[in-house]
């Protein structure tokens, strides 16, 4: 009794993966975390590295599907077959039956981590093992706290890829040299690319003339629909807007249809996502407005533009500058926290304020944070980013 080698393996050690479809059973960041940990089960014992990419063709595609999903091996709903994966010679993709109830860190439901770790064994070239208790045994083993890869599986994967580099600095993916694959943009020098969609923190949020809503965080941005990000997002801010993130603030003036991205002492003006001639320009053109603002928005109630920095705000009149008597304390806006990350007027004319993963809607008539059920503040990740 021992592990089984299917017969094909990857000819390189640095592999990429992409999660192209999520389950609704878990927040996206839980899926991402479980999948990453499942890959690390194999990385720990071999020279293999697994780097997540967000667009382009990965080595390994990971997705949740139901029934027939295009590979001729239809899923059977709850129970029975939980998932399947393809050996390296067939592409290595891993599919999970979304008819199951996927869970993490609990005995109830089907534990995503242990099933993913098993399927990725197939993606790397291992067959089913007839050793009792092996990760690569065919039957579901249930949630296993403090999981460690059993010896039979370690032997099997090292038979295919050799042992780990003993001088490996840390279990995290090593920074990659710029790839010559045109689809995959270079990673920043730090090699960390991880816009945690579901952290909910935003640097800025705004609209464009064609009615789209965009949220910005770190180096990435999302186009949001009424449920959450459109497919294909996040994307890198620089790739589309030509501005290196993170940005400080974003502003949209419905009357002109112009969208502004603000960073430090400069701002960029766009018509939809197309940069206008002559930009970036200095923030000095917004006479009286400080640099490095935290947020900017046009208030639906009076059409005036407001800039927020720290616990103060400035009121700005187009073509004139900051009005007399400003800055004023942010506390004038009753119910808001004393710092704001982002603010904007949504298509419904209401004004929303975002801070630390939470958001408030403002009641323009009573000049205070809106009352409603459920209460504000609410989770930005849940209500705007589809988590």
């Amino acid at each position, binding site marked *: 009794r021992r592990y089984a080698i*299917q017969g094909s393996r990857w000819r390189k050690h640095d592999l990429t993966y992409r999660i192209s479809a999520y389950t609704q059973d878990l927040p996206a960041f839980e899926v991402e975390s479980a999948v990453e940990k499942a890959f690390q089960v194999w990385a720990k014992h071999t020279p293999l590295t697994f780097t997540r990419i967000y667009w382009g063709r990965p080595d390994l595609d990971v997705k949740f599907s139901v029934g027939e999903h295009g590979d001729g091996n239809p899923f059977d709903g709850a129970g029975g*077959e939980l*998932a399947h*994966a393809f*050996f390296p010679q067939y592409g290595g993709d891993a599919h999970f039956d979304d008819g199951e109830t996927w869970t993490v860190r609990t005995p109830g439901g089907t534990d995503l981590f242990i099933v993913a770790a098993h399927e990725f064994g197939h993606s790397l070239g291992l067959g089913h093992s007839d050793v009792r208790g092996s990760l690569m045994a*065919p*039957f579901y083993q249930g949630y296993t706290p403090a999981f460690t890869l059993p010896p039979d599986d370690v032997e099997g994967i090292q038979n295919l890829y050799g042992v780990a580099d003993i001088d490996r600095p840390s279990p995290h993916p090593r920074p990659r040299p710029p790839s010559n694959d045109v689809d995959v943009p270079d990673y920043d020098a730090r090699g960390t690319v991880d816009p945690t969609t579901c952290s909910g923190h935003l640097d800025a949020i705004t609209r464009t003339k064609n009615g789209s809503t965009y949220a910005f965080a770190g180096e990435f941005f999302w186009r949001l629909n009424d449920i959450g990000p459109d497919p294909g997002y996040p994307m890198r801010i620089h790739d589309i807007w030509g501005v290196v993130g993170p940005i400080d603030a974003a502003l949209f003036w419905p009357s002109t249809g112009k969208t502004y991205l603000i960073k430090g002492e400069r701002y960029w003006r766009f018509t939809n996502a197309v940069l206008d001639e002559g930009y970036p320009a200095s923030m000095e053109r917004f006479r009286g407005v400080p640099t490095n603002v935290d947020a900017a928005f046009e208030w639906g109630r009076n059409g005036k533009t407001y800039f927020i920095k720290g616990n103060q705000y400035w009121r700005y009149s187009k073509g004139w500058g900051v009005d007399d008597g400003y800055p004023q304390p942010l506390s004038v806006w009753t119910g808001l926290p004393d710092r704001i990350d982002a603010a904007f007027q949504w298509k419904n004319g209401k004004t929303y304020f975002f801070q630390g993963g939470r958001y408030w809607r403002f009641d323009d008539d009573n000049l205070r944070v809106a009352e409603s059920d459920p209460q504000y503040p609410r989770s930005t990740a849940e209500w705007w980013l589809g988590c």
Partner: protein
Amino acid sequence: MPTPVPPLSTVKPTVSPQQGLKYLQKFGYLSTGTSQAGGLQAQGNLNKAIRQFQRFAHINITGELDEATLEMMTKERCGVPDIVG
């Protein structure tokens, strides 16, 4: 009156022998071309396949589609065949 139903915990899920044959084919123990017409050799292959499955599942190796074997075929599992290459 509704007929009394035995409590769930005593009803063990199981598959029919026909389903058991399909299971053995799906997971690579029997080649899909196996005819059911019978014949000593086919029977021999079937027995061998059943024994192989029982070994994988760590249950009594009888070579028969007995109750324990049919029950094991209802367990949650990976969809990749057990016998590959």
